[in-house]
Structures are given as C-alpha cells and as structure tokens.
C-alpha cells in the first residue's frame, strides 16, 4: 500500500479476513447430526441432578448430592441445561430448518428437523416452564438478543401443532432424507412418523392436570397416527466407544466421568452411589433389572449378585461412610457403557402412556392390563439394546415379575396409576427427566423427600429448575415478564402443566 494508491490499500483484505478453518456454506446434514448429538446430551439427565432427585443415585458429598439433598449452595447448577441448549441444539436445528424449509424437494428433511426441534424444546420447557421459544435462536437471523419468553401453554400448543404438521408432511414418496447423518433412524421416514406421534402422545398426556380435554384430543390423535410399539421402532441415538466424547452415550459418559472411571467401588470421584430408595425397591420387587444395572465391588471385582446390592442413604452429611465400598453403583457394562444407544422414546413408554389412556377411557382398543404388561416386558427387553447382548434379562424372570406385579384392576384408578408410574420409574431408567415429568404430573412414584440440613426447599422435592442467573442481567425485561407470569424463579414454583 502506498500513498499514491489509496484504492489498493485493501485489495487483499477479503482473502486475509477469511477464516481458513471454516466454510461459508454449511452442509446441512452435518449440522443436523450435531443437533442430534447435542439435543440428546443437553437434557435434565445431564449430571446427577435428576438422578438424585428421582432417588436413583446420591453422594455423601453436598455438591454432587445436590439432586438428592437440594443443597442451597448449589441451586444455580439447575440453570445449566438452559445455558447449554440454546447455543447448541436450538441454534443448530434452526440452521437446518433455515436451509431446508423452502425447498420442496427436502420435505422430509424439513419435517424431521421440526420433530427434533420439538423434542429439544419439550425437554427445556418441561424443566423451566416458560422459556424463549418463538424468539429463541434468532440472534443472527433477526438480531433478537433479548428473546421474549413464551408461556408454556403457548409452547405446548405450538409443539403439538408442529408434530402434527411434520408427521403429516413426512412422505415415502420423496426419497431425500438425512440418510446416515440421521443417527436415530438413518432416514427411515415411517419410523420418524411414529416418533412424531409418540412425542404427541407424551406431550398430549402431559396436559392431563391442566387441560384434560386437550390431553384427550391429542392422545387420541397420536394413537390414530401410530406410535412406537415395537422394539425395532424405538427412537434411539447410536454411539461409539472410542474417539470424541460427543460420540459417546452422554448419560453413561457423564456418570462414568463424574464418579466411576476407576471402577473399584471406593475411589468414586464425587462420592456417588445408587440411592437406598431405588435399590431397596428393586430388591423388594425381586426386579431382575437389579442385576442388569447394579454392581457391588467385592475384592476388586464387580458383582451383580442381587443379594448383596445395597443403596446408600441420601442423608449422609459430608463424610465418606466407612462401608462406602459395600454400596451399589451403576454397572460398567450397561448403564455406564459409552457405546450403548441412548433411548429417546421406547415402546415401554408408549405402552405405559396408553395404559393410562385406557384407564382414563380415552383408548379402548386394548386393555390397561395388557398395555401395562406389554410395557413391563418391553422395558425389560430394552436392556438387550443397552447391554448389546440379547437375553440380558432372562425370559423366565420377566414372566415371573409380570405375574407378581399384575395390574390391580379391581383397585381404584389412582392405585392402578401408581402401579403404572412405579413401573415407569424403573422402566424408563435412565431417562430421569421423563420420570420426573410424570412424577410431577401424576405424583408417582410417591417418593419421600430427603430432609437435609441446609436444603433450599424446606425438604420438598423441587418442581422446576432455575433460569440461569445470566438471564437476570442479559435478558432482564423478558425474564421479569416470565417471572411475573409464571411465579417466582425458585425451585418450588410449578410449571403450567403441573399447576
């Protein structure tokens, strides 16, 4: 650049200012895969929070034990899912939708992406209640830096509408799919349709407390559309064992990394173990899943001997108990298996939800007893997927468990509902978030809260997560509107469908 050639002073700038490690044109399928990984990972199942709250696990340590002890000093940890979700899966699925929505040849890509967006948003709103939805993820496209929070009722209405529209739009007549970039169904349009209707069933049923008529209407629609009933149709993310952490089963990896890398039963990084309540229940019910999911370390090796399984009480105040090694912990070859698939929507869940629908008289093609029993069998069978070996739970034990836990059709609806959701507690494990959602809606399983010194809730199981504190600063007006509408931003305020 010289004084006489002002115009030439910037001639190579465009090239200099181009990032050599990035492209300007996205490959939509690759972004879709990333959205799937991130959406599956960033849920209430990340970390030990809901595992503790639903009394699967605990720790003698206050920080890790927050979920089971509601420790006041750790409450802000609940903001993490919100923080992580938007710049990741919400942003990514938005990029995918932006790229495909106006292209009629990509009708299946568009519909698939919309279904995934509903999945992602449903996981978020169920934890927090009102959240940024319409305005969310529009920082780049529309320069919305302080997105408004939508009411949960509006979000549910839109999510259900989206599911219906996407399920209808999916067509086998068009063969353009995400193919192998689709880590759930590898582009199988028929299965995506079932997933969409299954989510409709899940979200529809969520409305029973707040709007039973709407719930019935959506549940009926979902059933008519066809939900996941078969083992082969289970919506699941696939993972690998080596390589990058993003390719690993996020629940297994997190549990492993937080506590169980040493696999010796004693040097658990954050003092984690299964909680007494969960293991006692499995033992009391002679549940064959106990040996599929739990071990105790004896002389340095993992034992699944059911008779020695023992959960740790959640009331231990900070000190590692001297019998720490004798408590049960997740099994390395199943729950902690990083290349196990993550089950997003199982046949078991459909059956349990249908059983409730049958109890409510919203579904009459099958009986509640049959659906409930099918649900239990499906939930036991799915350990084959998790363990990677068939027959993980012996058929004989399944049969005897089913026989011993028949639905008490002579009992009240409440009794039968409790039976169903006690099964959901075990049957959906480790999807603690969906168990938590059903717990809040139905009250089952009837967990007894832990009362621990310095707890934030007065010894109550909390009803929602706190918004990240940064929202109070960076998105103050919208945040205040949401709090005004929904109630104080604390752990005991109930979300709309839980009122």
């Amino acid at each position, binding site marked *: *650049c010289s*004084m006489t050639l002002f115009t030439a002073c910037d001639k190579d700038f465009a090239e*200099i200012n181009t990032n050599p490690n990035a492209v300007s044109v996205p490959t939509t399928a690759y972004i879709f895969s*990333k959205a799937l990984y991130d959406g599956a990972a960033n849920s209430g199942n990340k970390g030990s929070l809901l595992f503790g709250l639903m009394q699967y696990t605990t720790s003698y*340590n206050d920080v890790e034990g927050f979920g089971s002890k509601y420790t006041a000093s750790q409450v802000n940890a609940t903001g993490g899912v919100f923080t992580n979700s938007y710049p990741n899966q919400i942003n990514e699925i938005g990029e995918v939708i932006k790229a495909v929505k106006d292209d009629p040849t990509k009708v299946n890509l568009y519909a698939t992406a919309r279904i995934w967006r509903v999945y992602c948003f449903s996981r978020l709103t169920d934890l927090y209640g009102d959240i940024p939805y319409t305005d969310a993820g529009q920082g780049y496209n529309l320069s919305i*830096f*302080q997105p408004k929070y939508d009411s949960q009722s509006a979000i549910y209405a839109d999510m259900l509408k989206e599911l219906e529209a996407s399920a209808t739009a999916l067509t086998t007549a068009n063969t353009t799919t995400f193919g192998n970039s689709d880590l759930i169904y590898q582009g199988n349009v028929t299965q995506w349709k079932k997933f969409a209707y299954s989510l409709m069933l899940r979200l529809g049923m969520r409305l029973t407390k707040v709007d039973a008529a709407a719930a019935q209407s959506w549940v009926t629609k979902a059933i008519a559309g066809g939900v996941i009933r078969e083992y082969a149709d289970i919506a699941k993310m696939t993972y690998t064992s080596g390589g990058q952490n993003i390719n690993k089963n996020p629940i297994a990896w997190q549990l492993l990394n937080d506590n169980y890398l040493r696999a010796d039963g004693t040097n658990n990084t954050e003092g984690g173990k299964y909680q007494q309540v969960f293991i006692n229940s499995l033992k009391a019910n002679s549940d064959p899943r106990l040996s599929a999911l739990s071990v105790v370390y004896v002389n340095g090796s993992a034992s699944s001997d059911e008779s020695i399984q023992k959960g740790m009480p959640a009331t231990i105040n900070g000190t590692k108990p001297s019998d720490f090694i004798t408590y049960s912990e997740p099994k390395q070859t199943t729950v902690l298996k990083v290349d196990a698939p993550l089950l997003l929507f199982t046949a078991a869940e459909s059956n349990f939800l249908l059983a409730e629908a049958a109890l409510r008289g919203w579904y009459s093609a099958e009986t509640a007893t049959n659906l409930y029993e099918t649900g239990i069998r499906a939930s036991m069978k799915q350990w084959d997927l998790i363990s990677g070996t068939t027959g993980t739970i012996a058929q004989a034990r399944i049969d005897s468990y089913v026989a011993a836990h028949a639905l008490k059709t002579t009992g009240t609806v409440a009794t039968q509902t409790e039976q169903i959701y006690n099964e959901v507690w075990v049957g959906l494990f480790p999807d603690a978030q969906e168990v938590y959602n059903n717990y809040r809606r139905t009250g089952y399983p009837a967990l007894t809260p832990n009362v621990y010194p310095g*707890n934030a809730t007065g010894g109550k199981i909390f009803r929602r997560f706190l918004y990240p*504190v*940064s929202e109070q600063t960076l998105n103050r007006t919208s945040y205040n509107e949401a709090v005004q509408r929904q109630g104080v931003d604390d752990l005991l305020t109930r979300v709309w469908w839980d009122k």
Partner: protein
Amino acid sequence: GNSHANVNKNTATHLPKSARLSIVKEIGGKVIAAKDASPVIGAAVFIKENPRVGTTTDAEGNFKLNLPENFATKNITLVITSVGFEKFEVAVAADQSSITVSLKENVQQLNEVVVTALGVKKDKRALAYSVSEINGSDFTQARENNVANGLTGKIAGVNATGLSTGPGGSSRVVIRGNGSLTGNSQPLYVINGMPIDNSVPGGSSLPNGLGTKAGTDRGDGISAINPDDIESMTVLKGGAAAALYGSRGANGVILITTKKGKAQKGIGLEYNSTFTMENVSVFPDFQYEYGQGDGGVMPTTLAQAQATGRRSFGAKIDGSTNYMAADGKNHPYLAQKDNLKNFYQTGTTFTNSVALSGGNDAILYRLSLADLSAKSVLPSNTYNRKTASLNISAKLSERLRAEAVVQYNLEQGNNRPIAGDALGNPNWMAYEVANTVDVRWLNPGHDANGNEIFWNDAGIVTNGYFFVNKFKQTDTKDRFIGQASVSYDLLKNLTLKATTTRDFYNYNFTSIMPTGGQYIPQGQYDGIKSDVSETNSMITAAYNTKFAETIGLSVLGGANTRQFKNNQFDFYGQGYTIPYFYSYSNLATSTATPVTSNIKTNSVFGSADLDYKGIWFLTLTGRQDWFSTLSPKNNNVFYPSIGTSLMLSDVINMPRVIDNLKLRGSWAQVGGGGPDPYAINLAYSNVPSASGVPLQNVSSASITNAGLKPFTSTTLELGLSTRLFGGRLSFDAAVYDKKSSNDIVSVPISGASGYTSAILNSGELSNKGIELLLEGTPIKSADFSWNTSFNFAYNKSEVLKLADGINTFSIGNSANGNAFINNQVGMPFGGIYGYRMKRDAAGNIIYDTNSNLPLQTDNNQYLGNGVSPYTMGLNNTFKYKNFSLDMLVDGKFGGSIFSVMEVYATRLGLMKSTLPGRENGLALKGVTANGDAYSYTVPVANLRSAYYNNLNRYTELFVHDASFVKLRQVIISYRLPAGFLKSLGVQSASVSLVGRNLLILYKKTDNFDPEQGLTNGAAQGIESIGLPRTRSYGLNLNLKF
C-alpha cells in the same frame, strides 16, 4: 562552571553613515560550552526586549546580531538558549559590540529531549501533551522480571500491576482508564519505533480459570524484554501523543529505546548481577479456636479426617491426642498457623547480564547477553529467560545510515501455578487446609503408585503436593525480534527512512494433569503450539526548515503496513491409555484444533510541527488506517490530532522564582479496527467426530457483524508545567477527557438468542481524569542531595452505552459465579456486582423459612469498583557522597476486590467471622417475607452445612476496599571510589541492597494482599487463590570496564 560573559568594550566602531540607516549596530560573539569550551552550534540568540530580533550560532559557535535603530543606543538584555543548556541572559550595554558566552550544560534539560511517536525526538518544550520518561537504570537495580511491573507507582495515570502468578507472569498496564468495554485496554509496546506483540499465548488466564489451560498465566510479550537493554522508556498516555500510531495508540503507547554503542576507545564492558530472594508477604488472619472437624466434632477416624480435610468446624482446640488427620495418623489437636510458610519456599531470582559496546565514527555496536533464573515460592515452579541482543548502527556515508537490532529471547517455564478455580490449583490446599493440620503431613500428596492422596471431601481440590510432585507443565517461547532500517539524507534537511521489523515467536506449551488424580483419574492433556508474528514495514520522509529565522517547520510523512499472524494448534485430550505415559499419542480421546488469525492494517500518516522561536509550538498529525478486520464498506478511517504549547514565561514577565512556565493543549481522535479477524461473516466449522458421521456447527458463538466499522477514541487534554527556583522544583498537571465511541464490543447476550455474544459497534465509554507530578530537590550540596518526586492521578470512568436495549453485561466472574465483573450504563468500567442479603426498610434481614437462610437480592447489586480510580507514587532519593538511598512508596485507592479465598474460608470455618454459634448454635433473627418476626437457631451440628457453607450466596460479604499504600521499592547503593577502581581497570562499580514490595503500609483486607490479581484480562477485582504475593530483597552489583 557558572555561565559568564566576557565583555569586550569596543571603542572604535565607525560605520559609514549610509549603513547606519539599516544596520544600526552589530553585536558579534561566540557561544561556547562551559564544560569544554567547545562551540555551541545552533544556539538561539535574541534580545529580550523584542524576541523577533534574533539569530542563531554557526558551526563555530559564532553569531552576528544586527540591532535595529531603536535598540542601537540602549542597554539591552541578550538571551541565549540552546537545547541541552540552561537559558542564559546577559546585559549588553549600549556601547558593547562583542561578547563571548559560555553556557552551562543542563542535565535536566538534556533529559528533556524525549522520544515521541515513531521514535521522533522532540524538545519537551514543544510537546503539546504529557509524556513521561523513565531511565533504563530504574529497571535494573531492584528488578521485576517483567519490566512493565516496574512502572507501578512511577507515572501519574499509569495503573500497572503485576499478577500473582509466579516468575514469568504477565502484567496489566492501563493508561488513563480502560479504553474498551470488552476489547484490549492495554497500551501498545514499541521498541525503537516499531511495535511488538504483547499477547499472552493461548489467551489471558480467566478469573474463574478452571484447569491447566484457562487457569494458567503463560506470560505476556513484554515479560521477555531484558531491562538491561533499555536506555529509556517513554509513556505516551494516549490522545495526541499516540495519534501517529493511529488505531493502536488508542490505549497509549509505551516506547522502549534500547541501548546503543558509543564511540569510544576500546571495548566498553558492563556487567550487572542481581540476586534476590522472595517470601510470602501476607498471611491470613484465621481463627485458631476451633479445629478440624464438622458439627463441633473433631475427627478421630480416617474417613472423618478425609471428609473434613478442609473444614474447621470441629471441637475447641485443646491438644487432644485422639485427633486423626487425613494422613491417617494421630496428632495433637493443636493450631497450625504456619501452613503458608511451610508449603511455600523461599523463592530466588538470579540475573546476570553482560554487555559489550563500542565503535567509531562509522560504526557503533552493542551486544548484550543476559540470563535470568528464577525459582518461585511454589516448589517445582521455575522460570528461565535468556536474552541476547545486538544493536549495530553504521554511518555508511555522510548521507546514508543503517541500523539493525536483533533480539533473541528464550523463555522456559515449569509448573506455572494454576489459579482461579480449584482443579490443579496448588494454592487451595495451602490456604484452605483445616487449621489443626500441618500441611506437610499431606506431603508428598500421592501414594507409592502415584495416585493422589485423598485429603478432603472434594476431589476437584487438588492436593498441593500432588501438583508439585506430579503435575508436569512446561512451556518454551523462542522469540526473535529483528529490526533493520536505512536512512538517507536526500537533502541536508530531508531524510528518507525505511524500516522493517518482525517480532516472531514460536511457542510450545504442554500441561499434564497426571494419571491418578482424584478428580480426573485417567489424566488430561492440554497443549498449545503457536507461531505468532507481527511484521511492520514503514517508510518515512522527514523534512525540516526554518522561515525568516523565526519559524521552524518539521514535516513527516510515511506509510506503514502491519501484518499479524497466529498459526496455532490447541491440543486437548483425556485418559492416558497407558497410565503415567504422558504423550499426546497415548490419549483415549484427543482433539487438535487449529486456530488461525490473520490481520492486516495499512496506513499512511503525516505530521507537521511548527515552532515559533522556541516559544510557541503547533503540531498537527493525521493518519489513515485500512483494516482487514472490518466490513469492506467501512474499513478505513482518518485520525486527526492537533496540539499546541506555549512557553508563557517567554512571552510575559514572570516572577524571578519561575524559571519557565508552559501551557499546552491537544485534541486527538484515534480509534481502531476489530481486534479479531473473521467477525464479518457467518461461517461454519467441522467438529471432530469419531463416529463416521461428520459434524458441523456455526464457527463462533459470537454473532458476526457484516457492517463492522472502526471505533474512535477522542481525547482532549490540557496541561501546564513549570520549573521554579532554578530547577529545584517542578510541577506538571494535566487534565483529560477521553471518550470511546462506536467501541467494537463483544456484547454478551442472552444465550437464548442461540449465541453467547454479538459483535457490535455500540459501546461508549468515558474516562476523565487529572494527573499531577511534583518534583523537587529540597537539598542539594556537594556531598548531600535529596530528590523527591510525587505523582498522583485520578481517573473517572463511566460506561455511557453498551448496546441498544442492553444496560448491563458481565465481562467475567469468579469461580462458581459468586461475583461478577460487569459493565453497566452509568457506572464505572468493570464494577463488582453480585448478591446482597435481602433486607426490609428497617434493615432487618429477610429470611426464607424453607431454607432458614437470608433471601438473596438479584445479582445486579453494585458492590464496588474493580479498578482503583486513584493512584499515586512518591519517590525519594537521597545521596550522600558515594551512598544513595532510593525509596518508592505507592498507593491505589477507591477500588474494591472480591475474595474467593474468603468465600471458602467462610464455608470451611477458617474465618473469624464463623466463630459465632460454635458453642450453643447460631441464633438468627430477622423477618420473614411477610414481614413477621423470624428467629431460628442453627444447631451446632449443622452450623456449617445449614448456614456458613451457604454464605457464598451473598457476594457483599466478600467484597473489600482494595486501597493500599506500599513501600514498593528500596535501593541502597554504594558507588565504589574511582581511585581504587582505576587500579583494577574498572570505570565504575556500585553495589546495592535492593528490595521490592517490602511493606504494606496501609490496607483494608485482613487476609490477603489487595493486589492479589490473577489475570491481565479486563475483569479485575477478583482474588481467587492465586500464588500469594511476595516481598523480595537482594543484592545488585554493577560494574563498568
């Protein structure tokens, strides 16, 4: 000698009548230097009664002054001035026609030729802005490894702090307040007129830095400079002074002029050696009444001891013998007050430098070699710096000159301490260990297999000895700074110059979190490899002339092109497949991420300096910059500046006590482009994936801005300087008003937008301030002298605008988010924000009846200023014969600091404030949210878990006034007598006792040094258990042959 005039009375001056009409009288004479009677060339000679009647001396020092008619028959006063000499006035009687004047050299005057922007030397009289200069020798006796830390307290308006991150750590220097809301606010460092890179490889550490990368301060660019090579350091505080640097001068410029050879016989040899030791200087004032344990119970089993390794909520300390500590042994239950002394060692720094110099009329050279070897107070933490510097300047012909400067630096660090969060931070154990544990019981921190010994309830809080003995961090920075210039005098007064410089370094950082750690049992790897270069090429043409003997004009024009490149790879991995084998090739999960940065700025610039008789000066500068980082539509900007100064004392008659009085004023607009490249267009990057399914996402969580345009910073400065009592007292004052507009801000935004920040041209920030400098020589005699210098500055910063609709955002936070450093409209830059306890109108604490804890306010409560607005320094030098004593006291006032150490010391029961309730439980009294009276007693058993452990929710409890006054530096020197030395062939020799940071004369923090900072980023005002600050003392030897 004193100036004197030999007057020759001329009795026979008979000029023709015709001539008498125009040249009525001629005075001839000669001006010589008093020292050696050599002619003084170019001295101004004029008559006081009318300064327009004047001339200058020629090459022989002779002058001829023609007096007009009205002065020809009067007695007049002749004024003779020349740079480097004291102004001299002499009465000339009407009948005198010839005079010889000898001028006294003025050492202070000599110093007042200062280096200004682009290396241009100017008479201080001509400066329209405040410039401060420090001699190189100020950095070489009581040394700071990082020369920038040596600026602390020395210059009004310069806020310099060294970080508590061990030898080789970074500095933070801010001149006249932070200039950018989120960008860089540190000055540009320039060596011999050309910029160098001052970045921290891999980025500055963070105040909440977690782990080996974000928590390690890897040292900045200025830390590599050898103080022995510095001839002088000039601080251009910004605005007009730095306007010629355009975009990069917005935060001020620090000019370093390195030493050159001198023409002499033989070879000059200089040797300087300094050995210093350092020790921890501040010890926390913890409670030693109740010992290790929880719920009022002392641990008696290993499990209890491990669970309570960091808890001092035990029984009354009574010497019990059944107490067990985390080493599994019984010890008497006694207070252990010396854990900091026992964990840290005496640090040492040994610096040796040797310089050879010499030359003749044609060529001058200087070669220096230096080695600095430091052992930190933290065992295993070492730092070594080797520097070699060669400066050659040659006069190739009468018109052609060439100069080359080559510097090679090699910096090697080992186990730099991790600060910020707990993981791998060796300081957390030393500070947090329960008060009845002797920290040495936990040595060596690992078992025979190399696995970390469990010493507390949280695996993330690394055993400090495990860090010392097993963590492996090494870094190497090979740096080369080369400069070459050629200048050619096209005419006698027109010089062309071409310069090119390259500051290049190759950096290699590896940090191993070993196998066997409690928190990351299979280990973790962090690495950075980078090649960073800053290349500048500049051409200039300088022309000067004089009109009508009274008006001087200097014109400078030039062009510069700057290119910055960083080619970096970040290596990260987890899980050593073969345990204890620490190779990147042995990781279960690993990623290598390329980080590239390429920036170019092209510039043309010019300046014009007008000088009217050395009385009135006017400077105009202009610079146009083109930035590669900005939108092609708005990628260039013009920066003007104008400045003027007036020697008022030469215009109006002043009282005798006033030697001179100068007024000055300047206005400048500088600014800059985007600090980071690739901020214009949305881009997508691939994400490492092992599943065979490629992954991609947007490249940056920051929203790009296609219209990005330059920011501007406008400064108005007024100043006054005066010298009184024959130079015994001088005073300088400056006021300034600096406003940054269209600041390129990486605005943190709600993550719900899909991004965490947006790059906007929206910030407005104001800094207004005043700077005072008072220097004096109260005593001056042949044997004894006392020089004193006091500087004071106040800077008021105010955030005027962030972005549309955004009133506040955070630029950093403490570990666990207990405190935030925010920028909020209407408030000072970088305030400390967080939660308070909720109180009713009467001041009663409002309690949550569920948790029995005080309710929290929102987290936007302003709790203090993270940056001290007042800074001052007082330096006194006493000289008695061959002895000298130099003492620097400095202080900062008005800032605050949030202490993470106190957060934990509260949660863990070490603070004296946790004593209430130890015997009978803690009675809480207040009101409920409904306004009802509330009372509750926290039982002793739950005192920690139900109460004190949760006090981290109330930020206000841990924010303190960070004001201090320190005895920063003491140097006691003895200069050996010359006679004795001569016999040894030594020209001069001195021995000094030196000390740095010796005493804190005033502070408001009981438990830590208020300067306990750990990052040189924008978020200041957080203490987070970094390496403790130290006092150092030692010996310096200087020999010249």
